[in-house]
């Protein structure tokens, strides 16, 4: 279907997009940068889900739609499926990817002085900054999921959790 692009180009564009929004356009307002990046993801997810569901009938319920996201949609985007799906059957879903493709190469400075950092926990340690920078990169995939689901008729809010890289969990809360 159409032409192909090298994956390193996509990786490069995404890294540069996040970097441009965080360091140049909204350097003093990280919340605005985050919202813009998430909005871009929303558009992308919106359009992608159109492409990937063009021959399918409608989804019977929310769970079917989420399962589609976990299997087919995720395979199209990241060449693998979501490893673990949890739900509380009341509108909250947790999608866990044990090796999120866009975060496989994120790596911090191994020589950080942990003992110094713990003494002054209120200060911004290099470890915190790395975690902050990494979380900026998650707004884009969250936006993609949100855009995909809203185009399927499921308004929701999506957040991400990176307590253990390279595994990544996306929490989807469907709006009632």
């Amino acid at each position: 279907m159409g032409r192909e692009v090298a994956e390193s180009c996509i990786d490069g564009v995404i890294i540069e997009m996040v970097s441009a929004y965080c360091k140049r356009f909204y350097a003093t307002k990280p919340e605005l940068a985050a919202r813009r990046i998430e909005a871009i993801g929303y558009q992308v997810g919106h359009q992608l889900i159109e492409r990937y569901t063009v021959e399918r009938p409608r989804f019977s319920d929310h769970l079917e739609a989420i399962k589609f996201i976990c299997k087919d949609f995720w395979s199209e985007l990241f060449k693998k499926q979501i490893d673990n799906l949890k739900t509380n059957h009341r509108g909250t879903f947790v999608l866990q990817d044990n090796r999120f493709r866009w975060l496989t190469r994120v790596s911090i400075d191994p020589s950080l002085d942990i003992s110094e950092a713990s003494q002054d926990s209120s200060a911004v340690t290099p470890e915190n900054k790395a975690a902050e920078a990494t979380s900026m990169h998650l707004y884009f995939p969250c936006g993609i999921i949100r855009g995909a689901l809203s185009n399927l008729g499921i308004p929701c809010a999506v957040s991400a959790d990176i307590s253990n890289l390279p595994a990544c969990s996306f929490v989807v809360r469907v709006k009632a």
Partner: protein
Amino acid sequence: MQFFSGSSAVDISPSPAAPPGTASGLSGNNANMLYIFNRSGVCLLYREWHRPLRTLDANQDQKLMFGLLFSLRSFTAKMDPTSVDKGNLGVPLLPGQGCSFYSFRTNTYKLSFMESPSGIKLILITHPKTSDHQESLKHIYNLYVEYVVKNPLYVPGTPIKSELFDTNLDQYVKTLI
């Protein structure tokens, strides 16, 4: 010389077989170090696995190494008996073009060198009896591309501080020593 390995995600192509003569437990003053410089001479990485003697402090050592290799490259290109056009000396060459310096050997160590078209210089110091390390240097360059260049947190032109890169590099170099 192929620089773009075309590997997917982080499936680095399997490491090339270590050149004969390595890992044979040759003891003695077996030095083993790696330097990585970028185009403007900033030392991105200096790792040592074994170094019996240090003569200069780290900064001077790195400056000396960079200057030496810069001059050696120009010298070998100028003395090249096979080509007439010396082209643009001092600029990184495309693979297959011009005359590229590979290694020099003394009675106590062997220094292998590789420069990518983007100006990244890799210098590996090993035991003198090992054979050519061009494949190894290419593999290390691939590791660099995968874990450093594609790391969203890395700022190009600054020293490399990446745990993933260090781990993989150590793993690979252990097979060479």
